[in-house]
């Protein structure tokens, strides 16, 4: 199931969050070679201390993590502002109550392959994008600033997401970093559900059966 973990629920979800910080280390430090802060097996930075929203895909018992993403309002301190101020100024400067940023999107390939053999990492990324869109839409957010590696452009497109690239910068790791604006609206959500072959909402419910997710 897909659900959002807010600061007041961190304690109840320590197991899943522990897996998320480990996964982030594997993905961003070990594989993508980003210059991220590593604490032991964790990748954790100062934004994690500000009470961000973690959107996760886990099993119903909340024991196995499949994917995670971090959401923060652009009115507050943001990673994009601090890290990409010079290289991606257009994206870094955006700041308004209805504009949020999504960072550290990652998929747990082994768990996914074991429990959802029919779901490719690209599709998992698309499902997470839909979950982010639903969560944002329910909270009056109209834009998510996303950063991604160039090849993920295809994942957004095949999930029906409207993401416009507004900047691209090199020197952060193996691939250039792209910044895009992800449009959030009811019509985008309906379009994404149709493209992904899902009926009804993916977030917060247990409706999204494994079968549907594989579709």
């Amino acid at each position, binding site marked *: 199931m897909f659900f959002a973990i*807010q*600061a007041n629920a961190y304690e109840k979800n320590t197991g899943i969050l522990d897996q998320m910080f480990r996964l982030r280390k594997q993905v961003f430090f070990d594989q993508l070679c980003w210059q991220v802060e590593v604490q032991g097996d964790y990748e954790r930075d100062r934004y994690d201390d500000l009470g961000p929203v973690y959107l996760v895909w886990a099993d119903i018992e909340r024991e196995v993590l499949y994917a995670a993403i971090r959401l923060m309002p652009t009115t507050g301190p943001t990673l994009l*502002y601090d890290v990409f101020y010079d290289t991606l100024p257009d994206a870094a400067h*955006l700041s308004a109550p209805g504009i949020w940023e999504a960072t550290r999107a990652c998929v747990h390939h082994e768990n996914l392959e074991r429990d959802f053999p029919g779901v490719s990492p690209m599709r998992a990324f698309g499902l997470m994008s839909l979950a982010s869109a639903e969560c944002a839409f329910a909270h009056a957010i109209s834009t998510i600033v996303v950063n991604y590696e160039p090849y993920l452009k295809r994942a957004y497109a095949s999930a029906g997401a409207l993401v416009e690239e507004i900047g691209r910068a090199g020197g952060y790791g193996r691939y250039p970093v792209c910044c895009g604006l992800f449009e959030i609206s009811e019509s985008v959500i309906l379009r994404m559900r149709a493209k992904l072959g899902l009926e009804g909402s993916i977030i917060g419910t247990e409706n999204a059966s494994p079968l549907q997710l594989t579709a």
Partner: protein
Amino acid sequence: MAFNLIEKSDSIEGAIETLQHIFQVQHVTFHLANVNFGPIDSPFVRSTYPPEWIARYLLKGYVDVDPVVATGFSGMLPFFWSELEIDERSMSMMADAQAFGLGADGYSIPVIDKSARRSLLSFSADAPTGTWKHYIRNVAADLAEMAHILHKKALMEAGCRFSVHLGPREIECLYWLAQGKDAGTIADILIISEHTVRSYLKSIRHKLSCSSLPQAVAKAITMRLITL
């Protein structure tokens, strides 16, 4: 209209009373988190709640058990009070509040700024939860903007000054706006989508604390952020 009234009110008290009338909610509370600078080193709370309830709230130390305060100052997404998990300690507070005739449900918007200063704007309702939620969803984006305007206003009352930094695209959008172009036309000129233009415009309004785009243009010219 609401924005102008809020901006023009000379105090936070005046502003929250205006909000109470315009949005027809039972009560409005604005709470700036402890900030240790300037003249403010104690909690900054302004509320339309009756003074008797505020006195009781403080006397009983309800601020330490209030789930709205705990959730609002740690989390980031706006939330309905009916979605909160209530533990035993907060139970008695909720019962007490109801005995005072205060609404059971409400909606709170956490605010965080670039310096990680936080505040919380809360609205309480006596309407049944279903109708209330439906009503709030329709105005949620406006309420979020109000929360940020109040936050800035409260900090300015405390002597804070803000500087404005615009990105290159934001300046371009402002320039074309000042030339009388609308979002669709600006999108065509810059060869970007209209949604992207609208995002830049939203950001510009937020940074300049303006309720409308013409007001933002006027302010930007005065501040010499753009020249015609």
